[in-house]
C-alpha cells in the first residue's frame, strides 16, 4: 500500500502544482505581452505620461495611477472608521445574540457580486451625488463610497480575528488595574492587535485597487487627471476592462502593460500584508 500512497501523494502534488502553474502562466503572459510596449514607449513615459490616446500611439497611465490612488484612499477613508467601529463593537460590546446576526450579515456583504454594487451605485448613489453636489455624478466620490462598503468584510473579519487572538490576560490585567472598558480597548487591545488590523486594512486596499466591474459602472471612465472628488476618473483595472474588447496591436499590449503595473501594486500590497501578519505571529 505504500506504493499506492505515494502515487496518491504525487498526483495530489501534481494537481496542487498546477494551480501555481496557472499563476506562473498568467504572470508570464502578462509580462511577455506588456514588456515590449513598455520598452517601446519607455517606462518613465508609460508610468508618468499624462495622455492616453491609443489611436495616436500615446500611452501614459499616470492619470489612472493617480485615480486608483484617489479612489482607494476615498474607500479607506470610509472603510477604516466604519470597519474598526464594527470590529470593536462585535468583539467587545455586542451581546452574543446580536453578534450572531451581525457577523453573518457582514460576511454576506462579501458575497454580493460586484456588479450588483455597481448597479445599485449607478441607480441610487450616482443621481444623489449629481443632484446634491454637482458634477456628472459618475465620480470618484461615488466610486469611493461603494468601494468603502466593499472593503468592510475584509477589514472587519481579519481585524476581529486579530483582536480575538490576543491573550485574555491583556484585557483582564488592564481591567484589574482600574482601566475602563473603553480605555482597555483603545489603550491596550487595539495597540496589541495593531499589526493584524493594519494587515486587514492593506488587504482591503488590495480589494479596492483590484475592483473592476462596479468601478466601470460608477466612475465614468474619463481619461483625464482628476482634479476633485466630483470628477469622473479611470482606474488601472477599469482601463483594461473597458478597452480590452476592441484593442489590438500596441493598444492591446498597452493594456497588458497596465496589467503589469497593477500586478506589481497588488503584489506589493499583499506581500506587505503577509509580512505584517507574520510579524504578529512572531511576537
Amino acid at each position: 500500500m505504500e506504493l499506492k500512497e505515494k502515487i496518491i501523494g504525487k498526483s495530489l502534488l501534481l494537481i496542487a502544482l498546477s494551480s501555481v502553474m496557472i499563476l506562473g502562466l498568467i504572470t508570464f503572459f502578462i509580462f511577455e505581452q506588456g514588456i515590449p510596449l513598455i520598452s517601446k514607449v519607455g517606462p518613465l513615459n508609460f508610468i508618468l505620461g499624462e495622455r492616453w490616446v491609443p489611436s495616436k500611439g500615446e500611452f501614459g497611465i499616470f492619470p489612472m495611477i493617480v485615480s486608483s490612488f484617489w479612489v482607494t484612499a476615498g474607500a479607506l477613508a470610509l472603510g477604516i472608521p466604519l470597519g474598526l467601529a464594527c470590529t470593536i463593537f462585535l468583539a467587545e460590546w455586542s451581546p452574543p445574540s446580536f453578534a450572531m446576526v451581525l457577523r453573518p450579515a457582514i460576511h454576506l456583504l462579501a458575497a454580493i457580486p460586484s456588479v450588483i454594487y455597481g448597479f445599485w451605485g449607478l441607480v441610487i448613489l450616482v443621481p444623489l451625488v449629481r443632484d446634491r453636489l454637482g458634477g456628472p455624478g459618475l465620480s470618484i466620490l461615488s466610486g469611493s463610497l461603494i468601494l468603502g462598503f466593499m472593503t468592510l468584510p475584509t477589514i472587519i473579519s481579519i481585524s476581529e480575528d486579530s483582536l480575538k487572538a490576543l491573550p485574555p490576560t491583556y484585557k483582564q490585567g488592564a481591567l484589574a488595574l482600574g482601566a475602563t472598558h473603553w480605555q482597555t480597548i483603545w489603550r491596550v487591545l487595539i495597540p496589541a492587535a495593531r499589526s493584524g488590523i493594519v494587515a486587514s486594512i492593506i488587504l482591503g486596499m488590495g480589494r479596492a485597487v483590484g475592483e473592476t466591474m462596479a468601478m466601470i459602472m460608477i466612475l465614468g471612465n474619463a481619461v483625464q487627471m482628476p482634479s476633485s472628488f466630483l470628477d469622473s476618473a479611470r482606474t488601472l483595472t477599469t482601463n483594461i476592462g473597458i478597452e480590452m474588447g476592441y484593442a489590438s496591436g500596441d493598444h492591446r499590449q498597452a493594456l497588458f502593460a497596465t496589467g503589469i503595473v497593477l500586478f506589481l501594486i497588488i503584489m506589493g500590497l499583499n506581500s506587505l500584508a503577509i509580512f505584517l501578519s507574520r510579524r504578529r505571529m512572531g511576537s
Partner: protein
Amino acid sequence: MNRNCGLRIANCELEKAPNPRKIRFTQNQNTQQSPFGHWILVPGDYLGFGFLKLGILAILFLPLVLATGPLMGCQRSKPEITVAGSTSVEPFAELLAEGYMKNHPGSNIYVQGGGSTAGIVAARTHAANIGMSSRSLLPDENDLHPITIARDAIAVIVHPKNPLNDLPPARIVGIFSGQIKNWKEAGWESHPIVVVTREEGSGTRETFQKLVMKNEEITLAALVQDSNGAIRQVVSNDPHTIGYISLGLVNEKVKAVKISGVEPSVANIEVGMYTLVRPFLFVFDAEPAGMAKAFLDFVLSPDGQKLLEKEGLVPATFKVR
C-alpha cells in the same frame, strides 16, 4: 429512528476499520523494493529534483491538452459557422442567424461580440468564419474581403429636457473637443456640458471621429462608456449630457438632434442628406464559400434586407453618397 440506526452502524464500522488497515500497512512495508515501485518513486527520492521533473511534466502536458481541444471541436459534423465582432452589428446578426436557422433546420450559427477590431482579427485568424465590423477597413486590413450588409446612422443624442433640437457640425465638434464647456455657449442654461463617448477602438467612435471630429480630438475629460446601451443609459439619466449612438437604438428616453436642420432618419439617409452614416460589414478572409456564403446570400436577399430595414437600418442596396 432510522437515523439513529444508521449512526450506530457507521460508528461500528469506524471502530472496526482501523484493525485490518493496520495489518495491511505493516505487511506492505516489506514490498517497498519492487522495480515498478522504484520507478514511480524516483521524483520523490531527491526532493528538489522531483519537484522540477513534475513541473516539467505538467508544463508539457498543459499545451497538449490546450492544443488538442480545438481539434476535437473540428470533428463535429453538424453544419455550423461562427460570426464574431462588432457589438453594434451583433444584435442584427443574431436576428439574421435566427431567420437563417429557421429556413435551414439542423444548421447552427454562433454569433459572438468582442468588437470590430476583434472581429476582423478573428476573420483573419479563422477563429470565426465571418467577422463583423461597424467601421470601414483600415489600409493594413485590405487583404480581407469586406461585404456591406447594411448601413447604420449615428445619431447625436441629448436628454429630452434639453431644449436644443438642432446643432451645426461646428458646434458639435466644439462640444466634443471640449472647447465649448458650458451649455450657455450653445444656447441653453448655464451648466457644464457632460460629454459621453465610446472607448478607444470602438467602431462607433472611429466613425464619429472620422466623419464629425475629423482632426479634432475628443476631449479626455469625456465620460467613457463601453456600449451604445450604456451611453443611452447615462444620457437618459442626466439632463446635461450629450453623446452619440447608433440610430437604430434611439428610443423615447433620449432625443436625437438634427444636424444643420437635417433630421437623422432612414429617409434622409437614403437621399444622402444625413451623412453621418457607416457601413455594417461582414468580413471574410477569402472569397466566401460553403455555409458562410449561404448565410451571406440570405443576409443580402430581399428577406434578409427587409429584416434589417425593420430594425432601423438602411439596406445595403442603397448607394449612399
